[in-house]
């Protein structure tokens, strides 16, 4: 189980990363995260919607209402240019942190070592 702070911090980058694969709607996003993480990442699911709304306000995503096959209303989100940039930055930062961990734990691999 991940710590609350880490979940909170990683939610936005993850949503951005998932939307990088294309337009998606809330329920599906949550399902993808659960599927990909194999259930290791548990989101308090409805909290995603305010987050999406905030991201829309920040201009990272754009939304569109659609009526699906079974006549249900769904709001689809997709990344904007700014969102794409943000996603790239965020991902780079996370991999950098990851890399640092690697180097901290394997001093032999660090340049000075």
């Amino acid at each position: 189980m991940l710590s609350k702070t880490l979940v909170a911090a990683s939610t936005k980058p993850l949503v951005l990363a998932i939307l990088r694969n294309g337009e998606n709607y809330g329920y599906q996003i949550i399902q993808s995260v659960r599927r990909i993480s194999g259930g290791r990442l548990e989101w308090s699911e409805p909290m995603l919607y305010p987050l999406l709304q905030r991201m829309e306000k920040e201009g990272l995503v754009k939304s569109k209402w659609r009526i699906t096959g079974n006549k249900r209303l769904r709001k689809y989100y997709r990344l904007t240019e700014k969102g794409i940039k943000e996603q790239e930055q965020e991902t780079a930062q996370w991999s950098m942190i990851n890399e640092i961990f690697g180097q901290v734990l394997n001093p032999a691999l660090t340049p000075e070592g």
Partner: protein
Amino acid sequence: MIDRSKEKKSAAFDLEQAVGRWLKLLRSRPAIQDGDLAELEGYLRDKIEDLVGQGLSEEAAFSAAESEFARGEALGDDYFRARSRSRFGVRPPGQPPRFMPALLWNYSKIALRKLRKQRAYSFINIAGLAVGLAACLLILLWVKDELSYDRYHEKADRIFQLALYEEIGGASSELAVAPFASAPAFAAEIPEVETYTRLLEGAPLAVVEGRTFDLTDIYFTDPGFFDIFTHAFLAGNGQTALASPGALVLTEETARKLFGQADVLGRIVNFNNDYNLKVTAVIKNVPTNSHFQFSGLVSLSTVANREEIRQVMEDWFRVTGWVYVLLKGGADPRAVEAKMAAVTLKYAGENLRQSGSKMDFRLQPLTDIRLRSRLEGQIGPTGDIRYVYVFSLIAAFILVLACINFMNLATARSAGRGKEVGLRKVMGAPRSNLILQFMGESVLLSVLASVIAVVLVGLVLPSFNRLAGKAISPASLLGGGSVLALVGLILLTGVLGGSYPALFMSSFRPAAVLKGNVGRGVKRASFRSILVVFQFSVSIVLMAGTLIVFSQMRYMKTRDLGFEKDRVLVINMRDAAARRSVEALAGNLKSNANIGEVTLSSGVPGRVYSTLVVSMEGRPELESFPAWTIWSDFDFVKTYGITIVHGRDFSRSFSSDSGGVFLINETAARRMGWGPNAVGRKIGFDTDDMREIVGIMKDFHYESLKGPIEPLVVRLAPAADLVRQARFLSLKLRQGDIPATLAFVKEKWAERSERGFDFFFADENFDALYWSEERIARIITAFAVMAVFVACLGLFGLASFAAEQRTKEIGVRKVLGASEAGLAALLSREFLKWVLLANAISLPAAYFIIGRYWLANFAYRSTPGILVFASVAGLSLLIALLTVSWQAVRAAVANPVDSLRYE
């Protein structure tokens, strides 16, 4: 939208009903909006569908999905935060918004009700603000006009006036005029100089179809004129207008004056019965915000080959006209000045070395000529940037005064609104709401006031224009910038004026005010009194300033100038024909018993135009210095009643005099280093022609008292020279019927000249030297009156408020036997104390500021005496007393029964 056919019915559990209940629950959270709800519902249904697909019953699936929303409260907050981030800060759900449009109606109703119910206060408030704003607007218009000078030229930033810095015999001067020879030299040798134009002033007699007109402000100029300056052509064009000799460009006004119409292209005008000119273009009148005005232009080539003009055009040491240059874009004026110095050395260096003098050219930016140039001999009247600053400051002060009134009155009245504030607070109004409400009210008042102010400005603008010598059109009030400025002023006034009352009133504690004790704290009263002191301080500085300025004006006009300026009639002799027959004219005039001495001269006190370099016999050329020069006949000293302190006056009985001798003033004698021994020595304008000094004149003021007396030489000119040089015929009138004498002179003039009879009296002429100061003095007076008016309105309002507040106290005092006079004194005393304090602060300030910054401009100045300050103090106290006593007396004589009855 939801397809019910697919749903399985269950007797025990109705999914639709459950979802409906769930929706209803969420809908109750204010931060969750309909769109959010639809999205959340979609999520819930997807989830249920999935779970049912995994084999759960609808009921179990619903409760599992629903349980995720257990923290619904927090969800609402999340939504709220997502939305309200950054913009307005975080307002928790459930709290009313800051501004409720529904209350607007109530606000306006209350505001209007207050206006109606407190008519007197509202009047004082609005009238004070309106007068303050009007004064402010007038000053802004004036400032705008002053700053707009010459900016209408398209190439304004590249146009420069050639200023000449001269140093001759240790005396230096900076002149607006420059030698004509320099311009073509600079244009040829300095690549940055694109083109130039030279202006030679003339006042010809124009003959059109047999009728004659006296023209002034005609300039002879180069074709470059229209390449440099921007003027609108009604006919003709800038390229050809001045290209050939004999070309005449008229302004619309002059064209109408000469021909009665503006369509005069190709018509012929004769100048001075000498040469014919053809109208090649007609332009619109020169804008009033131009640093010089002209009525027509003649191509300089028309007169270029005349002997006297040829000298002017070729001699680097003759400066009789103005030169403007246009630099190429991006050229650095400093660099061009350096190159000009080199060119000057090349062309005039030899001469400069011989005479030991210096000559340097500076580039005076066109747009600075009006306000920032201090050059002598400027082509038109100049202003002074310091007056722009001072007036702007006065405008700001008057506005602040009006705002203070507003604050004072609104705060004073606030006691009556304590209950309203309390009630609003109890009903849940946050403080910010109340602040907005009161600010809104004050903005409303300032809008009302500004409407009145605009009307006021429209009404007084013609008089203001006369006062200030301007032609500001009412339309400029509506010009783009002005409207913005006005709206800005209104908002500023409203917000400034409303800020203190708004903050103060909104701070009332509802429990306290509803119980009825709005603090009549000492603190508030003292704050208000500080404001009154400030208001009166500003008004007193302005009043003192006005008086000091006027006493200086009076001093200058009444000071003994050292010559007799009364009853000297001076006739302008622009007509060469009239000058030639001046002997005969003078003879005719002397036949009148009322006319005493008559003298013909090149200059008169107040209008001495030429300076010439004076060399002294037996002294090195390096000691030569420039002196003001008047050429005259034998009777100059007698006509003007000038005292001779050493030697003698010009005299016909000395045959040697007629060849040309000198009189000098004491300053010149000192400058020459000879003092009284100068008599008998020889000086001259030309080392080959040295003449004797026959006498020394007592120093007299022949120029404005702004400057010290400078060296003056009067040269007795041979008749032939005088005809060329003389510009004025002065007549000393004896006591008697002056209008009749004037009519006589006019008649004799008409017999000799076709020119109009152009005359002035020497004393008026001298007073005219102070016209610009006079004008400033009048404007300041007008604004001082306005400031005092505004301050008095404020005092009146406060006094009546104080009287009202103390109704009961006065009633009690009266019942206990206080006299009416004593009561009135009691009520007035406090205010007078403040005004006295204001006097104590501002009189020294006025003395210092005006003495230091204004009076210092005058070489001869009056010392503002104790009388000036005493009268200002007395006047301010009197005005304050009159303002306050009206209310004080009214309160004092009121019947105590009325004020005490209701208890």
